[in-house]
């Protein structure tokens, strides 16, 4: 902005500079007002959907699919194979603090009104597995009387109105045409605003790459017609994945045959990860 005015007449040079500045000021203000107007539209994910060209995946047209994920919490046995498979498949940091998927354990001890909750990353469970790279639930309730207990698997909900996409200042986080919420790791600036904005704690900051990470539904697999690693590995079929556009898919069947719920519906995020077997205490 500061530049030497041209010409011999210093005063008129300064004037010209000021006139130029006046124009710049006006245009920046206009830009800001425009920006503010758009900011006002918060909550509408449509404005956030990036409309790129067809992605460079051979034989895959993302406009043809609408992926959905189902979780039957009544089936989960807390074996945590999904968590380990996910870490292996996606190269997730091998620690007790970085997860694309995790499993929660809810236990009501006899007579208790509220449950005790833990996940595989609880220090007690890490101690039981003996490593931050392998996961298991310990036997802490072995000698206790229990009224009710169950497991709840969790992943990124690939929300229809994702707050992570809404807040990303660069557009590095985006919603694809087929419903997945992805992160462009080459474009992410690592501000972690999205980590804050996700109500579900689905995101984390990758310590090695210094960018944000989360579940992709194994996008590299599903676009080749494979199942996400967690779904593939689950021994009891607690995790269901498929194309909601296809009536014969597992997920369509799951949605047709069950009364499903989503997590934290009050956020307005509209998850596309559907549950059966939740409880009022699960959030």
């Amino acid at each position, binding site marked *: 902005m500061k530049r030497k*005015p041209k010409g011999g007449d210093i005063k008129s040079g300064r004037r010209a500079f000021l006139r130029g500045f006046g124009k710049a000021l006006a245009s920046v203000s206009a830009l800001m007002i425009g*920006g503010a107007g758009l900011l006002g539209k918060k909550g509408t994910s449509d404005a956030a959907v990036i409309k790129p060209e067809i992605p460079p995946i051979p034989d895959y047209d993302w406009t043809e699919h609408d992926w959905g994920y189902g979780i039957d919490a009544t089936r989960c046995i807390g074996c945590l194979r999904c968590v380990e498979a996910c870490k292996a498949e996606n190269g997730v940091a091998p620690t007790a603090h970085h997860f694309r998927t995790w499993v929660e354990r809810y236990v009501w001890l006899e007579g208790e009104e509220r449950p005790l*909750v833990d996940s595989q990353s609880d220090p007690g469970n890490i101690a039981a597995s003996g490593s931050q790279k392998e996961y298991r639930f310990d036997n802490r309730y072995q000698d206790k009387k229990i009224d009710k207990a169950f497991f709840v698997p969790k992943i990124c909900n690939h929300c229809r109105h994702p707050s992570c996409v809404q*807040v990303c200042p*660069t557009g590095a986080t985006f919603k694809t045409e087929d419903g997945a919420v992805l992160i462009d790791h080459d474009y992410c600036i690592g501000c972690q*605003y999205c980590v804050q904005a996700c109500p579900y*704690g689905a995101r984390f900051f990758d310590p090695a790459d210094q*960018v944000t990470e989360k579940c992709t539904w194994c996008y590299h697999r599903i676009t080749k017609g494979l199942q996400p690693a967690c779904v593939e590995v689950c021994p009891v079929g607690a995790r269901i994945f498929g194309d909601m556009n296809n009536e014969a898919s597992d997920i369509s069947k799951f949605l047709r045959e069950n009364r499903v719920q989503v997590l934290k519906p009050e956020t*307005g995020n509209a998850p596309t990860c559907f549950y059966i077997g939740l409880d009022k205490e699960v959030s």
Partner: protein
Amino acid sequence: MEALYHASPFTGYVYPNETIIPWTVMIVIYPYMTGLVAGAFSVSSLYHVFGMEKFKPVARFALLTALCFMLFVPMTLLLHLGQPQRAFNAMITPHLTSAFAAFGYFAAFYAVLLMLETWFAFREDNVIRARNSTGLVRSFYRAITLWSDDISEKARSYDHKWMLTLAIVGIPSAHGLHGYVGFVFGSLKSREWWGSDMMPVIFLFSAIISGIAVLIVLYTLVCKVRKTPIDHACVRGMGGALWGFLMFTLLLEGLEFANVVYKGKEGIEIIMEYVTGPLFYRYFVFQFAVGAVVPIIILGLMFARDVRGKAFLVGAVISSLLVLMNVFLMRWNVVIGGQEIAKTMRGLVYYHDPGGREGLAAALAVLSGPFILLAILTRVMPPWKEMTEKG
């Protein structure tokens, strides 16, 4: 792997990914510094726009103070980013639904505005300096006046007209910039402690009090160091403004807290556990009692008893230091506090200093930057003229 991340201890149940707190002390001093900018600028505007002569002695000094802090604000964010070299991505392709996307534009716009206003405010002085010096010094001052040499009556009235315009545009910009920082937190629905409509307003008022407070302290310090007389009317004016705005800020913060407690939405148990436990001292005792109620009483008593002169000065400086602590704690309790209450609403995470580029030492270094820059800038462009001519 161990050295790459810093997990925090927790109680209750928190989501596994929450055991690493994403925003550190850098994001505490980011709103702290933008607040000081907005506050200092407000004081300078009281003279430049509203013509309140009382504030003339500090008006240009306040402008320099605001500029110095503004120039260090981006530093906090750059140190926080995982990929700082990509910071411009947010400006090249701003994603407009993000409350952060326009920050780059907003901050750049305001920084340029501050620089221009400073340029006009000091142009006459600098021209005179250039005329009265030789060699390199002369070239330097010629350069910072952008080779302008006209200080005729007409040119100066032209300067004033521009300063007035810039200051008038500057007021909403400074406050917009800071209210906007409040929106960055207040607009998030993921955290009960942040998601509040009052957040931008609270940020704004606490910004104003911190700006006034830092000027009272710096002005007194400068007069002591330079052994020049203190303009008591000016300090009294700033003290009065501090008192008024402080009461209002406390009221807003109190209302905000009362709202959370009274509504008692889901998860209130964990919030109560938090505020009565880990937050008790830094929230109730230091932020509210020591940082707000005490200075309100000190200033109130001094005005009620018509305390003047040195005694008022001492009281005002003590109050200001307490207010600076209050606002710092307010930022801390919002930014860190919000993250210590887990999104599960079933547990608490305990922030621990990550060290390194985002640690406390780095934050203190960044925070001292503006003061060092101010010391240098006031040598280059001394704002003391009106401080001494009135004293």
